[in-house]
């Protein structure tokens, strides 16, 4: 038991890899470095798939790229509705990022979504986008007025929602990734062979991708509500 607690604590702590020596030292933690790796992979894939695009006589590579982009776009656009369509690129990027971040644990990296700061940052970005979408669509006056809808008495609850929404987004993603990670560790401790492989299919791959989907779904639901 003590051994397990120790190894869990070691995984939970996000160590500082190095420090940038400006402004009195900025700590770069492990999750940031893994995020850079994911970014590099995503940019590389986008670069390879996005070269030499043509209108007619498309190559196989371009066909693959078009399929991926249209599939992801149509998935997100179905959730945001026609008004929120301009936020699709951001949502798709977050979807791909969280998806890769959740399954990168399989390749021996520490997944960045296991760091509470990363999920908190994602949730704060989401809520800023949601409120911005509301202001951009309706103007400040109508946006403020929306807090008193449908009746004036719910105003405190509506204001509270601005804070509870990112909190629940952040905690849901973090808790799910951490939970599946801990369960995988426990299974590996009890049965070290074969069984972890089967469960890893569910906990690492299915659950990780599902949580990415849920995060983007909720964000787009909020955006849809804000621009309505």
């Amino acid at each position, binding site marked *: 038991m003590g051994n397990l*607690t120790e190894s*869990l*604590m070691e995984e*939970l702590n996000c160590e500082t890899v190095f420090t940038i020596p400006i402004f009195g030292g900025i700590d770069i933690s492990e999750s940031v470095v893994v995020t850079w790796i994911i970014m590099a992979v995503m940019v590389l894939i986008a670069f390879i798939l996005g070269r030499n695009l043509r209108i007619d006589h498309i190559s196989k590579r371009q066909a693959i790229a078009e399929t991926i982009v249209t599939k992801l776009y149509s998935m997100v656009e179905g959730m945001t509705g026609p008004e929120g369509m301009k936020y699709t690129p951001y949502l798709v990027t977050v979807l791909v990022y969280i998806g890769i971040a959740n399954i990168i644990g399989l390749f021996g990296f520490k997944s960045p979504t296991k760091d509470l700061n990363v999920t908190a940052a994602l949730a704060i970005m989401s809520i800023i986008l949601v409120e911005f979408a509301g202001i951009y669509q309706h103007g400040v006056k109508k946006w403020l007025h929306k807090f008193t809808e449908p009746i004036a008495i719910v105003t405190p609850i509506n204001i509270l929602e601005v804070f509870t929404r990112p909190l*629940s987004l952040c*905690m*849901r993603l*973090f*808790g*799910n990734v*951490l*939970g599946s990670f*801990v369960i995988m560790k426990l299974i590996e401790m009890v049965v070290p062979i074969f069984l972890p492989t089967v469960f890893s299919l569910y906990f690492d791959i299915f659950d990780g991708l*599902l*949580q990415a*989907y*849920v995060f983007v*779904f909720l964000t787009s639901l909020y955006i849809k509500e804000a621009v309505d």
Partner: protein
Amino acid sequence: MNTLIAIGAGIAVLGGLGAGIGIGIATGKATEAVARQPEAEGKISKTLILGCALAEATAIYGFVIALMIIIMLQ
């Protein structure tokens, strides 16, 4: 002290009860819906998976809190 910590963690995990009941009800209703309208299966299963993922969150919160109790208090 250790016993109390274990009991506290156990109580925190009780939150999983709600998630279990919720997912059970959702799956039952989804089965009914598919039986009534088999052609809408794709839409129903998509909604079901999403609902389950959301209902699961309560269980996850309980689990995280139990874990924190064990790790922080020891």
